[in-house]
Every structure is written in structure tokens, then in C-alpha cells.
């Protein structure tokens, strides 16, 4: 009988929305089963939300996840506005979309960097994070904070984007576009990245449908879904853009979808600021006097997929019930499909591919021999395995240097 090994990854991956513990069961180098545990990051947000007023809930939901700190307020605003049955002003719609798309660019850049780190390409990591900085500068200019923007409220947005700032934004976007070009070129043309990511962690169209995966994970397997188009909100129906899909379903396809999506985001932002320039400043919020009794659902396309918020109002000034479903929750289940049968070095990569943030796994990961309970591999050795694989590929001539 072959010996089975258990490799726990986690529980702390601070860069993920939900710190989790993954247990990889391995036979030799091949992963045969995977289990996961959640709860390390449980903060009781849904319950907390019931004790806050509608205005305060926005600050709470943007702190569900620091990387998607606009998607949650977006979905919550959509839900509450459904209860109140108002339509926000056009200017507020454009501003909301600008913030949402800037966030998508920063989140995808962050993911590209971390994926590079996992492959042993620290240069990609450093580059991607360096080029993320101009996006954060833009955020600071528009909202006053680098993360957690506090821009949304029921009935509109909290701050206007002054028309005098628009030329500066346009210039920054042009800079960011150039940097994305550079990064896309570097990733798409590298034969070693091709060798490491093509055919790895494949999810078929059927897998996606079975597991209900969303976002770039689904789009990379040819499932053409995007809340921004399918259930239009904010300014997305008012601008031209397209949903990016790929067919292969492997890690490379996921990278491709994310890289190309950044161009779409940049183009959406440019169209939005053009529209803003033609409008009068200041018309950004509606006065909402009360929130009537009722149920509301709100959806938004986060960088990782569909965010869903369900709000029950009893007519008081705080939600009676608030249910949240984040995209990673469904995406994580696909690990069962993408990791089983892979080598350990590829499995870590497949994990990273589904959820953009998987950087800190190495700190707590270790491999234990199941029978004796003795530690055989620690985190750094696991990473070293992945690095070794890349360098072997390099040497074997798959990569021409």
C-alpha cells in the first residue's frame, strides 16, 4: 500500500478574503484529495450589521475584504436601493463605476504579482506591485484613502470627482495602461510561464457549472457570465466594453482573462471620465428620508466574481437581516476538481489561480507524514519545490534565455 501524506496549507493566508486551512492528501507527489476548513477570519459581520445604521453598514461591508472594498458596498447599495426603489443620478453612477474599475485593476495587478511570486518570478511580483502604486495614488487623489474608500452611500456617492481633477486622472490611466502593456508582454511571451501554467489546474465548462464558480475563474473556462452585463447596474450599460472569456480553463487562461480585463477596465474609466467632464459638478446624491419595509437583493461584479447581498428591512434605521455571499466562497469549491491528480508544486499554483490572493500560505504550511506524524516538508521547502521545477524547466530548454 502506498503511503499517504497530509499537507496542511494554512490556516493563515492574510491576503485572502477568508483565511482557511487546506489539507492536501498526497500519494507520493500526486494530490489525491483536498479538504478545507474555514472560520479563522470569522468576525460576525452579518450580525454586526444588524446593530449599525444604514450609513454605518457601508463602512462595515467595505471591511469584509480589503481588496474588494468597493464590491461589497456596491452590492449593498444595490440591495438597499432596490428596497427604496430609487435610481441614483447619472453622475453618481459614473463615479461608482470609476471606483469599481480602478479596484479591478489594482486587484488583478496584485494577483499577477502573487502568481509570479508562486512561480518563482519575484521580478513579476515586484513589478506588478510597483505598477499598482499609481492606481493607489489615484484612489488617494479621488477618495482620500489608498484602500477602504468610503465613497458609497444609499442614494449616491459621498464625494464628487471635481472636473478639474479629470485631466490628471486621464494622464495616470495612460501611464497605467502602458505598465499593463509591459506586464502583459512579459507574462504572455515567457516560455517558462507557458510551460508552468498551460494545462495545469484545468476546469472544464461543466465543472464550472457544477460548482457554480463565478468571475474570471468561470470566464477562463468559456462560461460567459458577468454581472455587469447580465444584471446591469451603475454606469456599465452606458459605456462600451466587452466581457473577456477564454476557453482553456487552465491557469494560463485565468491569467490571460485577468490581464485583458484590465484593458477593459481602463477603457471603462476613460469613457466614464469623458462623460463626467460634460456634466455639471455636484449632482451626486439623492436625499433618502426613510428606508421602507421590504426585501432587497444586490449583485455586483467584484474582481473575483459575483458578490451577492440580501437585505431585509423592517422600516427601522438598521437592517433586520443582512446576508452576504462573496465570490470566493463558490470558487474555492472548484479546488476539488482543479487540484486532484496534480503534483504538489502544480496544486499550489492551481489554488493560487482560482483565488487571486494566496501569498502567505508559505508561512504556516508544512507537510507531515501521516503514519508517524513527523514533519517532512515545511513551507519554504514547498515553495522551493515550485522554484526548482521552474528552474529545471528553464534548464531543459523549454525556455530560451
Amino acid at each position, binding site marked *: 500500500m502506498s503511503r499517504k501524506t497530509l499537507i496542511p496549507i494554512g490556516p493563515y493566508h492574510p*491576503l485572502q478574503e477568508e483565511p482557511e486551512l487546506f489539507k492536501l492528501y498526497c500519494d507520493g507527489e500526486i494530490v489525491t484529495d483536498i479538504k478545507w476548513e474555514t472560520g479563522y477570519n470569522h*468576525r460576525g459581520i452579518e450580525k454586526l450589521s444588524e446593530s449599525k445604521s444604514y450609513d454605518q453598514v457601508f463602512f462595515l461591508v467595505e471591511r469584509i475584504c*480589503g481588496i474588494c472594498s468597493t464590491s461589497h458596498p456596491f452590492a449593498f447599495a444595490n440591495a438597499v436601493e432596490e428596497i427604496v426603489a430609487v435610481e441614483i443620478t447619472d453622475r453618481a453612477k459614473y463615479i461608482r463605476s470609476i471606483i469599481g474599475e480602478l479596484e479591478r485593476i489594482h486587484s488583478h495587478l496584485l494577483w499577477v504579482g502573487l502568481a509570479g511570486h508562486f512561480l518563482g518570478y519575484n521580478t513579476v511580483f515586484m513589478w506588478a*506591485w510597483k505598477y499598482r502604486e499609481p492606481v493607489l495614488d489615484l484612489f488617494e487623489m479621488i477618495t482620500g484613502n489608498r484602500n477602504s474608500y468610503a465613497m458609497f452611500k444609499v442614494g449616491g456617492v459621498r464625494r464628487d470627482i471635481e472636473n478639474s481633477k479629470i485631466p490628471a486622472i486621464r494622464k495616470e490611466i495612460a501611464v497605467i495602461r502602458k505598465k499593463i502593456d509591459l506586464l502583459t508582454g512579459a507574462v504572455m511571451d515567457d516560455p517558462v510561464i507557458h510551460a508552468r501554467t498551460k494545462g495545469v489546474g484545468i476546469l472544464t465548462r461543466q465543472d464550472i457549472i457544477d460548482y457554480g464558480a463565478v468571475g474570471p475563474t468561470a470566464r477562463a473556462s468559456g462560461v460567459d457570465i458577468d454581472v455587469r452585463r447580465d444584471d446591469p447596474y451603475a454606469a456599465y450599460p452606458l459605456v462600451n466594453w466587452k466581457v473577456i472569456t477564454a476557453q482553456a480553463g487552465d491557469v494560463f487562461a485565468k491569467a490571460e482573462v485577468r490581464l485583458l480585463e484590465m484593458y477593459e477596465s481602463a477603457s471603462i474609466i476613460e469613457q466614464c471620465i469623458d462623460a463626467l467632464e460634460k456634466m455639471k459638478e455636484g449632482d451626486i446624491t439623492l436625499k433618502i428620508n426613510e428606508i421602507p419595509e421590504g426585501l432587497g437583493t444586490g449583485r455586483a461584479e467584484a474582481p473575483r466574481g459575483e458578490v451577492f447581498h440580501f437585505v431585509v428591512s423592517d422600516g427601522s434605521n438598521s437592517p433586520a437581516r443582512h446576508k452576504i455571499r462573496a465570490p470566493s466562497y463558490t470558487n474555492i469549491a472548484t479546488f476539488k476538481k482543479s487540484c486532484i491528480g496534480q503534483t504538489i508544486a502544480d496544486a499550489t499554483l492551481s489554488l493560487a489561480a482560482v483565488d487571486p490572493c494566496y501569498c502567505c500560505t508559505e508561512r504556516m504550511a508544512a507537510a507531515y507524514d501521516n503514519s508517524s506524524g513527523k514533519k517532512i516538508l515545511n513551507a519554504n521547502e514547498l515553495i522551493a519545490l515550485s522554484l526548482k521545477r521552474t528552474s529545471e524547466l528553464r534548464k531543459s530548454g523549454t525556455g530560451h534565455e
Partner: protein
Amino acid sequence: MGFKDYCFRKSLWVFHFGGASCNNCDIEILDCLTPRHDLERFGILLVGSIRHADVLLVNGSINMRDKDRLLELYHQAPKPLLVVAIGACGCTGGIFAEGMTFAGPVDKIIPVDAYIPGCPPKPEAIIAGIVKLAGKK
């Protein structure tokens, strides 16, 4: 120069513990290491094991599940150790302090040497905090 000063005279190695946080603080800590801020020019290095660390950075509110793990890490760490609580969550529990699973703040669980407030603190603030701490005699 006391023993403690002697220990912290040279490059500080940092271990990062992210509790029940919203990730923003974690990202800003990582951001400190990337080209714009580049903490490594001060000799500050993020390490993978608490047993190699001089500084323990804790961010995020601490929930019941994290609490024992944080304590265990603290006991495993070689002393003297500097503990830095980062962000509103690390300092007081922030917006999650009324949560049903909240077990912190950090200074109720382990002794804290420095607090860096902000939600999240900017990388500049984190660097300033650590440099100040390192320079304190």
C-alpha cells in the same frame, strides 16, 4: 547599552501574523517590501518562522480561534521580542470590537510595544513606526 538594545542593534527580522482582518493591513505591510517603499533598505526582512524573528507584527482583530494561536506564537518566539499592533483592529478591535467572536484586542492577549493606528495605516506610517521603535533606547 543594555541587553535589549544590543539585541535590536542590527537588522530587524519581522514575522507577520494576520488575525481576523480585512486584508488591507496585510497588503499594506507587504507593500512596504515592494519597490516604492522597500523596507529592506533598513535591513528589515519578512521571515517565514517566528523562531527567526525579532519583531512580531500583529494586525486584524483577534477572534476566538486566532487567540490561542497568537499566544502560542508569542511563546515560541525568542525573547526579547518587539510586538507591534497594526491598524485600528490591532490596536483596539476597530469596527469588529463588538463582534460576537472578538477575543482581543492584541494587548489583552500579549504585551504590545508599539501601536500603529490607521485603517489601514499607510506604508509610510508603518515604516515610521518600526524605525522609531528600532531607534528607541
